[in-house]
């Protein structure tokens, strides 16, 4: 009986129908979609966290030594011009065809944005605030932790948003080394002309980017209660 029904009404992702929008695909290929999404999130989040972990000490060093700042900015700008499809292969000799290659490559891009935004954020702290802190007897470290970093938070968070959203999009290119999260589904969708799979993967990518962005904005609001009453630029 069920066979008869499916013969009379082919599912919307059937070869002959091949619809762009197909709810039946979402339910039938659920595990595949969930797996790809989980891989996508894992790669994105590890890359951004790795980027943050390296960007902070680098920015602090760059701020201390002006010559180092020029060097770091120069190298990171050069790195930024290398397309991701070229950066991943360049890492392959060292890390192989693994997720590490993708995470490392994406972390390098995130790093570029993050170092810049940490430096911009610290530079946005007004000089008189810094002077007052010194006058109140804050040491170098406590001034940084208690005064400068909190005030730099809005600018740094803006950088984190840019880095996260671009990393979500770039993760798809990891399909080159078979670790692209939803990018793997996109590649497969193009190869086999599977429109429902392609559309679902593309939409999910954008949804993940928007969700993570909203999450960071929420976290920022909680972390900087003083900016809520003021109208920010």
């Amino acid at each position, binding site marked *: 009986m069920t066979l008869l029904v499916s013969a009379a009404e082919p599912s919307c992702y059937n070869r002959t129908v091949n619809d762009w929008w197909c709810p039946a695909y979402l339910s039938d290929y659920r595990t595949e979609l969930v797996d790809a999404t989980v891989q996508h999130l894992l790669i994105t989040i590890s890359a951004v966290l790795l980027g943050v972990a390296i960007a902070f000490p680098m920015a602090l060093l760059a701020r201390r030594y002006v010559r180092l700042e020029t060097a770091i900015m120069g190298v990171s700008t050069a790195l930024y011009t290398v397309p991701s499809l070229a950066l991943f292969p360049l890492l392959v000799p060292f890390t192989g065809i693994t997720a590490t290659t993708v995470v490392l490559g994406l972390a390098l891009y995130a790093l570029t944005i993050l170092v810049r935004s940490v430096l911009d954020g610290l530079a946005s702290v007004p000089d008189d605030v810094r002077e007052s802190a010194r006058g109140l007897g804050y040491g170098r470290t406590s001034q940084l932790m208690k005064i400068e970093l909190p005030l730099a938070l809005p600018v740094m968070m803006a950088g984190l948003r*840019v880095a996260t959203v671009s990393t979500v999009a770039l993760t*798809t290119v990891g399909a080159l080394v078979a670790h692209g999260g939803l990018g793997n589904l996109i590649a497969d969708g193009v190869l086999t002309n599977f429109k429902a799979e392609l559309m679902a993967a593309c939409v999910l990518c954008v949804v993940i980017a928007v969700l993570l962005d909203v999450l960071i904005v929420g976290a920022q609001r909680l972390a900087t209660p003083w900016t809520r009453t003021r109208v920010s630029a």
Partner: protein
Amino acid sequence: MRVFSDVWAYLSDGSSWTGTGGIWGYLVQQLLLTGTALVLALAIGLPLAMWLGHIGRGGFLAINISNVGRAIPTFALLALLVTAEWPGIATFGPFGRAGIATLIALTLFALPPIITNTYVAIREVAGEVKEAARGMGMTGWQQFRRVELPLAMPLVAGGVRLALVQVWATATIAALVAGPGLGRIITDGFANSNYGKGIAGAVVVAVVAMILEVLAALAQRAIDPVPRTAKKKHDDALPTSPLPATT
């Protein structure tokens, strides 16, 4: 490591540079794609953003188009365009397989940095300067042409530079959907487990990207109406242009 000698072997072999599937052919094709898409995006984006910046409207749109552009994976858009009925994979003149789809994607991804930077550049010209121009009896057009545009030029050029980097990167990704350009050497190499070839392609793509960036930086410096040395003394640093979504 053996793979490095494979890379060298591929790059030093004359036959990998010439003929169909050679580096030169793909390089010329990708430069052609990049140039065409950039010109198209400038033709659409510059007048629109300059006009919006001059009348001071549409700021929300002009700023947020960059955020939207970042969230959409270039690979996803290329994949959708290639799989759709139109433009599909039809070969388009010298632009190769899926030429139209690639050109559309490249142009679309070049627009956000151009529009956002140009809008901000025109908008951020100091209010007193604009007022002085009006006070001298300049018409709206004269104010735009002789005051706003020259002062905005460095930042506008910055946007074009970002767009160039973006277009070059996106043109490379076109290979992931079997499109035209140098990325084909990378994807072909990886698809056939010929990593030496794939990495050699990546080296060429990266080197050309850096050459383009340096040329763009020199061009940007050349059209700056206020010389560098004079600017250092004043403290009015230009607003730094945001990084684009690289691809």
